[in-house]
């Protein structure tokens, strides 16, 4: 009985965090829209680059890509970039430097569950904005979306969970680094190189492309884009599920080691 009441209380706590997170995220919905638009400019530059490759006299692309599919790839890549922003990785640093971490730790809640609630609330708002932008693009045929299968949904959820676990680990670095912002260009660089934001990873020479595809960045970048667009094969999605599970477990294990060590360094201050 006590266990049931405790579970219900924790669920209420999770829902409360989720609703506050949603209110906060909706307050900054215009920031999400401007992020979509500015990332879209970057994507448009890549689209025209690859279209120029196709239209050049000596140009040829892998038969998997033509003008339409390469355009769709970069539009979906932009959508995924909005859903997995670098700002998520620095939430713990913001709590630490503002002094609000004291209150988060003092509350009778699981910090990971509370962080998950904030993470999901932000993704819901970003997903709505991205959906509003993608829908007309898919109607006119620029963005080719497919109805995901059950396996596709499992992979997409796992890749989201992988990104959350990645954020937890990166976030704990704020207890050792005075300045966290140098990690932002690191994340941008890795997503550009290994996440398929600048070019589809299957255009890289083998086996480099395959290795990068099943890295964390390739999973919540390139392979997520292919899955949304319906161009990922069943073998790729199944392999992606296994890779996402393995990476998530590894990152969570790493977090379990880092978090107690981080807390031992934490010196709470009243703000």
């Amino acid at each position, binding site marked *: 009985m006590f266990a049931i009441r405790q579970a219900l209380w924790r669920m209420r706590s999770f829902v409360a965090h989720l609703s506050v997170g949603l209110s906060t995220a909706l307050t900054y919905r215009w920031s999400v829209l401007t992020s979509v638009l500015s990332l879209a400019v*970057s994507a448009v530059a890549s689209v025209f680059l690859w279209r120029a490759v196709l239209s050049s006299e000596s140009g040829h692309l892998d038969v998997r890509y033509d003008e339409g599919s390469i355009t769709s790839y970069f539009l979906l890549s932009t959508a995924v970039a909005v859903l997995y922003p670098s700002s998520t990785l620095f939430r713990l640093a913001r709590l630490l430097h503002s002094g609000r971490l004291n209150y988060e730790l003092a509350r009778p809640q699981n910090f990971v569950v509370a962080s998950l609630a904030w993470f999901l609330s932000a993704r819901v708002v970003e997903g709505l904005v991205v959906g509003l932008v993608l829908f007309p693009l898919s109607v006119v045929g620029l963005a080719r979306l497919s109805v995901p299968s059950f396996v596709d949904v499992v992979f997409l959820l796992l890749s989201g969970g992988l990104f959350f676990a990645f954020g937890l680990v990166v976030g704990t670095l704020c207890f050792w680094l005075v300045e966290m912002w140098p990690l932002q260009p690191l994340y941008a660089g890795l997503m550009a190189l290994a996440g398929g934001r600048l*070019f589809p990873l299957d255009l890289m020479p083998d086996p480099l492309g395959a290795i990068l595809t099943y890295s964390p960045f390739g999973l919540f970048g390139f392979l997520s884009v292919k899955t949304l667009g319906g161009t990922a094969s069943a073998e790729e999605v199944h392999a992606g599920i296994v890779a996402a599970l393995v990476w998530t477990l590894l990152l969570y294990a790493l977090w379990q080691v880092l978090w107690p060590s981080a807390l031992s360094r934490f010196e709470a201050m009243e703000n």
Partner: protein
Amino acid sequence: MTFALLGVFFRQSLARMLTNRAAAVLTLGFGVLFAAAQVVAILVAFRFTDSLGEWSLYHVLFLLGIAELVQVAYAVLFVNGHESLFERILEGELDYEFARPVDSQMLAIVGRFDLPSLPTAVLPLALLVYSGWHLGVSLVSWSSVAIVGATIMSVAFYTLANQILVTTAFWIDRPLGLTGTLEDAYEAAKRPASIYPRGVRFAFTRLVPIILTTNIPVGLVRGEAVAIDMAVLSAATIVLFLLARWQWRRGAMRYASAG
């Protein structure tokens, strides 16, 4: 803003860098990663073609070197000032800047040099040397002088555009989406103008001439007529300067101190 004052800022920035040594090392290492990714993207593209809009691989690498050099120069001189500026505007912590007998706008953005970003200029400089050598660019020539001048103007354009976006914090609460806009939009400048359709090319070369900041130096290397493009970029930079000054004066009228 005297050289003596700039010397003081440099020493303060050096002390700050030595205090945050871990961040300095990370900046040095990771700052080149995105630039390296851009180079890899071009090399991957040239696996499938020999030219992009009549530009060879070396022309595109030269353009990329210019673009990255502009961003490194901005990062070293102004990025720290801009990144903290909108927080200080929102928190009402600009009293120091407004009280000093120095131009407040210059004081707000200059003086927080990001010295760890300075070594990241190695990659763009290496790109320029490598591609320039293949293109037969002479270091001692009027075209090289023109290239340097165009690059300096590009840095000014980039800085002023960022200044205008950051200073919107006087009017907009937490303009988080705007502060990264120019960096994302600058991706368009890392490609030859000729790959864009006519309408997009017009917009980014005549209305908001961001593409000219990188294409003019390559045009000089190719021996193209760039006088009109230079005039457009110069005019746009002057307009941005006047707009940034006007915006700062108007923003100062709305400023509320927290002190």
